[in-house]
């Protein structure tokens, strides 16, 4: 928001020093700083995956590992991961639509889009559970036969680190999605109760939205570096 403002900042909203750096509220800036630190964690995960792959001459190819889809025994390489990626992108879009509706103080539409965002997050989480189950079950697709199941120390696909990185990277990301869904549910209830209507702005949706888009952003990188390359 460059250029001249329509009005000066309400003195109550200024930070302790009597100014407001970058014309931004304290909470929103701290959300950005938190996201930078979180991005460092995920960056470390993904770069460490690159390190390991450089130490191995051969690494499993994901088209040969992730080809299952629910309710079918067909061979559909990467189809389900594509679906999950799409779900997460769409739930990011509904989130940004909720933020946009918030800027118009349009409570009804904020409720609608927040609800769709939560649904998208839950579909993604359910898919993640199914994906883990299928990965652990191994090539025979039967999770009750323990000998060939993927685990931390051994897996039927390749080096032990392959399963370790699958569990850690997608697990850590899935945990972020889980907490994102919880945050979105809290925001959703607050919107229904009219908390932000009374406050005069929907900035809380924007802050929650930043987190939710970050989760989508991380998945874009996980998708490329774990599944595609």
């Amino acid at each position, binding site marked *: *928001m*460059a*250029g*001249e*403002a*329509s*009005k*000066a*900042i*309400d003195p109550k*909203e*200024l930070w302790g020093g009597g100014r*407001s*750096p*970058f*014309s*931004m*509220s304290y909470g929103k800036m701290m959300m950005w700083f938190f996201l*930078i630190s979180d*991005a*460092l964690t995920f*960056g*470390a995960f993904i*770069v460490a995956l*690159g*390190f390991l*792959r*450089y*130490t*191995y*001459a051969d690494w499993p*190819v*994901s*088209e*040969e590992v992730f080809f299952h889809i629910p309710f079918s025994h067909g061979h559909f390489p*990467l189809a389900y991961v*594509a679906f999950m990626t*799409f779900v997460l*992108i*769409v739930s990011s*879009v509904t989130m*940004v*639509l909720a933020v*946009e509706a918030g*800027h*118009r103080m349009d409570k009804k539409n904020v409720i609608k889009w927040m609800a769709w965002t939560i649904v998208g997050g839950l579909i993604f989480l359910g898919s993640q559970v199914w994906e883990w189950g299928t990965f652990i079950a191994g090539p025979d697709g039967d999770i009750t036969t323990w000998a060939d199941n993927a685990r931390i120390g051994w897996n039927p696909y390749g080096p032990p680190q392959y399963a370790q990185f699958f569990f850690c990277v997608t697990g850590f990301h899935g945990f972020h999605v889980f907490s994102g869904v919880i945050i979105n549910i809290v925001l959703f209830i607050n919107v229904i109760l009219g908390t932000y209507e009374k406050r005069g*702005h929907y*900035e809380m949706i924007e802050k929650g*939205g930043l987190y939710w*888009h*970050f989760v*989508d*952003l991380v998945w*874009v*990188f996980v*998708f*490329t570096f774990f*599944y*595609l*390359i």
Partner: protein
Amino acid sequence: MERDDIIEYSLDAHHSEEKGVEIRKKIVQVTILLSAITAVEIIVGVFMGKRVVTPSTWVLIKYGYIVLTLFKAWYIIKEFMHLGHERKSFKKVVLYPYVFFIIYLIFILLVEGSAVFIHNNNFDWIQIYK
């Protein structure tokens, strides 16, 4: 110096119905773009996988994936996370330290990774770099 207190404050960032229509149009455009890029990545991944194409083509595809990923990431950060519309100085505060750090981390870990590979496979350093 620009005065801080006369710039539109983030809490006052309300917009009108007409502006909303414009913003939603942009959101739809970005959505289509992101979905199309993902679809291309999947199709390439399925039909031109590592086992199918020649190693040199695979290297090209890999770099293509990285370019497309950064492109998608930039659009998510710029439009969805709204960083493209924040103050320029704040954009730098967020992006520069991270980008500098991560470029160094990628460089150093990949170099170390190849060193470990050479060590594990008992290659002769001198032969490789001669």
